[in-house]
């Protein structure tokens, strides 16, 4: 499933990144890659922006970007 369909406060494992090029590079430089554990922390009022935790770092993502991260 996609992060946008996940449950707040739950931990997931990244399965696949559905993107290439600059965005993929960006996600990887934040440590978001296959097999990594991430925790879904919060979203804004209108679900336009999401907050996840990778390791000890909190990361904010826009909906479009969050949809490209497949987790399980």
């Amino acid at each position, binding site marked *: 499933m996609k992060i946008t369909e996940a449950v707040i406060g739950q931990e997931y494992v990244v399965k696949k990144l559905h993107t290439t090029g600059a965005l993929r*590079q960006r996600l990887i430089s934040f440590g978001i890659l*296959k097999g990594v554990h991430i925790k879904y922390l919060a979203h804004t009022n209108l679900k336009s*922006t999401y907050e996840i935790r990778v*390791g000890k770092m*909190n990361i*904010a*993502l826009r909906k479009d*970007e969050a949809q490209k991260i497949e987790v399980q």
Partner: protein
Amino acid sequence: MKNIKIALVGQPNVGKSMLLNAMGKAREHVGNFTGVTVEKKTIEFEYQGYLLSMVDLPGTYMLADYSQEEKITSDFLKHEQYDIILNIVDSTNLERNLQLTSELLNMDKKMVIALNMSDEATKENISINSNYMSELLGVDAIKVSALTKDGIEQLLSNIIKTHKQIKKESKLVFSEAIEEEITNIVQFLDKNKFVNILEKRQCDNFNTSLSYRKIAIDLLSEQKYIYKKLHDEPIWTSLQPVVLKAIEHIKIHHNEDVMIDIMADEYMSFNQGIINETVETSKDITTQPSITQKIDNILIHPIFGIPIFLFFMWALFQLTFEIGSIPMDYIDEFFGSFGDTVGGFIAHDELRSLIVDGLIAGVGAVVLFVPNIVILFVGIALLEGTGYMSRVAYLLDGFFHKFGLHGQSFIPLVTGFGCSIPAYMSARILKNDKDRLLTMFIIGFMSCGARLPVYVLFVGAFFAPQHAGNILFAIYMGGALLGLVLAKVLKMTAFKGVSEPFVMEMPKYRMPSVVLVWHTVKSKTMMYLKKAGTFIAAASMLVWFASSYPKNIELSNSYETKIETAGDEKKSELTNELNEKLLELSYLGQVGKFIEPVFTPLGMDWKMAVALQTGLAAKEVVVSTLGVLYSLGGDVDEENSSLIERLSKNISFASAVAFIIIIMTYLPCLAATIVFAKEAGGWRYAGYLFVFTSIVAYALAFIGYNIAL
């Protein structure tokens, strides 16, 4: 003296600026523009008989070229000359930080690691065996704390020690499959006696060139620069199939089809190995929600987050006005009596007028607003230093995105409330050119600190004191909202296209360092005062000259005889009339009269029109121009001596509204326009900006005037 050139590299939010500050004794000040270190900055100081020059590189998560800042850093490390890399890491988050470290190990350079924030790590029960880590990495790792200044001496002496020694072999190893391919490529290069002329870098006492191993690793990491360089070498034709086969083999082995993923994974497992060996964390702490998490529960609450942010902004502007106004009276009084005292010593009439009415009145009017500006800068520095700024970007991105902007546009836009110049520069954090340009076009609508004096003056003159803070808040918010609407218009017309992705770190909350805030505020205030002392002083004198000449002796004489014969009451009336007429006939008056028709529909007289023109040079000059124009002519009644009173007497409310609107919307100062042109990539953009803002300013002022009438 021997010089050691040191490249300072670290991820964002590792306390790099603070560490630089803690090293002290530096010749250059740190933290150029609020928080974001965009320009390369060199700091020099002596230590143990060496001259250490540290180049402060922009923070980067990886050596990629995603943003302009990352590109600056990775280009510098690859192509420039330096002796040592000083890698600064956050001890409390080694998992992330070592990712960059392991990439740096690949640079084939001497290196020292500063394990910063070691005091925080101790508090979080993270214990690091730095000696063992040094051994495993083959690079010295020193525990330091920029806050408590622990370990700074040791760090510096280690830099010297490392510089004196021969470079140690890097201990970064990859998994078997990759190591095998590296060996293959190295053997191929060796067998073909490939003369490595790629990058002969002259260092202090020995020559290095890219080692075969580094070439192999960079080829396998698909780094563009190495392909570019090798492409022109004759060996390329036979090397290419070897590399292709190697990459193919690694991809099959890792069951993954993107090389950057594989390499990132490799670095990550290497780092995990290091961390497992050298770091101990006591478990009981980690299960509890951190302070950051608790604060975030309130500050980025889905419903209350934005109202809380708006409240903070409102409070900031209230403070700016309320506290700022306290010392203003004293400053005003000081310049008044200073002018009188100085005037008493100058016998020559015109020279006295130049010094007192031109120079002192003009500069005084600008210095008057230093308290307001200090408060505003402190507020912005706090917003950035605490980590709250990125929360706001998170909260606002959804909203901003609707207007075609990026959540991170927020940072340059808020910086714009301080000064447009650093704001234009900090727009570099936006990678996409269109997003960046769009943000830059509307930065001017965020009223900068220099416009504050004009607002304070006009709000003070035309609104009751109890509403002043609210009106000021409304002006700033109105400008910001207008900017958003115009962003949408521009996005739909001139800047059509795909938006930049939004992926951003939300750093831990921290108590901002008093020293760093002080440094930022001080350097910005000094910049403002320097401007007051030089540029504005000159402009004030120019305005004085243009408004005092040419002298019309005939007119003066004809009035003088009238004044002499007139009664006491008629006398002051006639003097005023004379001054008014003289002003109208001056150079400035002539220019003003010439352009007056353009501003008549806005209810402005020529004096206001002139003030707006001089405001193109700098917004502070608007105040000093008004100061000069309304002190030479008009009312000379002693009791109405303050500029605020004179303005409220001479200008109608509706014209004042139009004037404020124009100040809000037209071109920022000359210096900012120059920076804009530079950052946007050409003077034609400055031309577009001029046309765009002028049309908006005139149209809105016209509407505002007619509503207020």
